[in-house]
């Protein structure tokens, strides 16, 4: 089983901002999800999204990344097995991100 870790602060940005590529910025959630996270999910069996190294995660960003995964077609059960979200200083961010997956699944189903 292939495992892959993405450190958002080092590989993407330590200042994520906004939801959408077009309106917001290159640091937006859509850019991260479409250009980095989904390709990793397609290529690897297990992906770890390490949010450590930044405390700048707005709710809009987290919801668009992780809730957006569900809206992009990933099922909640599959994400529970294949996706792991971690942050070494802020467990509340991890809880929040997982909550967005759960809520998005309720509205997609």
């Amino acid at each position, binding site marked *: 089983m292939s495992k892959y870790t993405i450190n958002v602060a080092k590989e993407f940005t330590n200042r994520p901002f906004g939801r959408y590529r077009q*309106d917001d910025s290159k640091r937006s959630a859509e850019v991260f999800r479409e250009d980095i996270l989904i390709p990793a999910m397609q290529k690897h069996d297990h992906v770890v999204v390490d949010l450590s190294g930044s405390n700048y995660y*707005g*709710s809009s960003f987290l919801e668009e990344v992780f809730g957006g995964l569900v809206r992009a077609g990933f099922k909640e059960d599959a994400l529970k097995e294949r996706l792991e979200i971690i942050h070494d200083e802020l467990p509340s961010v991890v809880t929040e991100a997982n909550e967005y997956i759960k809520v998005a699944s309720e509205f997609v189903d």
Partner: protein
Amino acid sequence: MKKLSKDYKDRQKRIIIDRLKREQRNKRSKRQIIRSFTYQNNEIILAPKQLVLQKPQLTNECTAFIQRLSKSIPKKKTTCIDFSNTEIFTALAAVYLYSEIDRHNAAVVKIQNISSKQVRNTLGRSGLLKLCGHSDMDSDGYPITRGIDDDDLPEIIQYLMTTASLYNQLNPKNSPQAERLVSKAISEAMLNVSQHAYPGTDKNSRFRWIIADIIDSNLHIALCDRGVGIPKTLFNKSWFKEIAWTGIGDAKAIRKAMQYTRTQSRRHGSGLGSKDIQELILEGKGELIIISGKGYYCLKGSNKKEKTYRISYDIKGTLIQWRIRIAEKENE
């Protein structure tokens, strides 16, 4: 010559008296709001006694003053703001005034006759003196900056986290949590400006102004944009049309949206930015003020009580202020 009838004379007398009363009323109302003097295409505008936006009873006078400036600056050779009468000048009013001068032409604006120490302090710390070409003051506050998106957010957060005792207020051992709470509130407010405040305009013109300062053991963060205002953007949203009628008024529209986003933001992730904006003062037991269009909204963090007021003059944009009580500095 035909004699005028008594009725005709009485009627004419009544018309003249009514006209004089009307003229006096108009003069009185103008005198109460704004005083200004014009000579040779230069204008001196007297700033109000209290330049305070936080108190609804003073908001009208403050916004009327700013509107007077907005008419004067583009047309006059010099617009001079006279502070001889001003006793109090708050950070929120400062950022609004700064945005007005900055978006027109600061080169034609001068400041004169500062009589109050508190006013001089605010003018210096906010950067208004420097903006209008006067000598700079040493300041340990974070002066007003104009920006786009979140380009100066790290500097603001660094100032707040290193100089304020915010972590003491929220949780002595939880500085990363405090940093996130503050950064996401400000970041989401900046994102709202970028996404909603200036529809149809180029991204590089979507300016917002921000100030952060510690005054009397209170942390004040104020953000200002000169876009279309929250009420106008709300009435274009389908989810808002479901919960409010079009004649609701600006202040109640803002409150409705705040209440909705506190309780219903799970649905498709909408309204999470507003939730973050409110969370800072709900966690920190502070006060949030939003003034937009003709609406004034205040939320107290300690008891979640909300107040709304209708103001007479359109703010033409949005002002948001967070005020959070911080721990007193220990004596060295």
